[in-house]
């Protein structure tokens, strides 16, 4: 079942329920579904958490996910991962799960809509100065914008905006292009070849989630480590 028509490029255009000016579209529905799965699943598992030698397999799974995330964050940021784990981990798990669920029929990844990816990128845009200021203080954070001289101030601002735009468009373009490629292949060579592309789509989805999280981590790390390198 393909609920995204071939002439639509965004799940925003699929309207599921409408009452006057209140519209529930597919992006919102599937975003809430993923949030429900993540929160509900974690709640179900951590409800019966135990610190004994024998642990349940779901607790084992969650522990391995968290420890992989911590290792990756520690490698990228060269820093203690605990304070970044909640934000970066949320980004990775949300994007990863929303990209992985594309194998379920009738599902459209909310990351195939520019609004979702723009919201995620804007959250990174605001998280970078927040982490930077808490790490090295207001004054020395904003001093970085005037390095090496004050002429570079507009270029720093332009860089921040353009990399936010790049984050949003990269994720959106990758996932949306995958949807479109599947649609075109279904019209040209049905039955077998689209299955291979679906399998490739799982890889692309996970790699994109990884890249989004790593890039957010790199931006945050570069905002909070410049002071130490300068001194």
């Amino acid at each position, binding site marked *: 079942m393909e609920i995204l028509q071939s002439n639509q*490029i965004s799940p925003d255009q699929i309207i599921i329920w409408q009452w006057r000016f209140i519209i529930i579209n597919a992006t919102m529905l599937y975003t809430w579904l993923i949030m429900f799965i993540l929160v509900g699943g974690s709640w179900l598992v951590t409800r019966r958490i135990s610190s004994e030698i024998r642990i349940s397999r779901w607790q084992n799974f969650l522990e391995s996910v968290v420890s992989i995330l911590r290792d990756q964050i520690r490698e990228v940021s060269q820093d203690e991962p605990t304070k970044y784990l909640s934000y970066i981990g949320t980004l990775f798990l949300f994007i990863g799960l929303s990209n992985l669920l594309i194998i379920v029929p009738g599902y459209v990844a909310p990351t195939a809509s520019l609004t979702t990816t723009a919201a995620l990128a804007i959250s990174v845009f605001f998280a970078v100065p927040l982490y930077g200021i808490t790490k090295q203080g207001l004054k020395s954070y904003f001093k970085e914008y005037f390095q090496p001289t004050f002429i570079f101030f507009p270029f720093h601002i332009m860089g921040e905006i353009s990399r936010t735009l790049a984050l949003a468009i*990269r994720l959106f*373009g*990758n996932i*949306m292009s995958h949807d479109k490629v599947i649609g075109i292949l279904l019209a040209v060579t049905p039955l077998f070849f689209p299955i291979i592309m679906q399998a490739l789509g799982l890889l692309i989805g996970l790699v994109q989630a*990884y*890249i989004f999280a*790593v890039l957010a981590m790199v931006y945050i790390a570069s905002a909070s480590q410049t002071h130490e390198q300068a001194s």
Partner: protein
Amino acid sequence: MDSITVIAMASIIGAGLTMAIGSIGPALGEGRAVQQALSAIAQQPDERNTLQRTLYVGLAMIESIAIYCFVISMILIFANPFWTHVIAK
């Protein structure tokens, strides 16, 4: 030719040219990046994790240029603002 024909023709040709020309640069760049990364991994297999991570991030950076071209060609074909303007008139 009326304006609908001109807009449709220009959009389709423009979308094709955007993808064709816009994917040359990223393809060459990704090829060079992967080549360098492979030879680096072959020389220093111990540093594989760092190299792989840097390679993925770098490839995503390079690829985003091709993705911009793709998004623009998709907008030209599926969500063309000039086309909808002319149709609505």
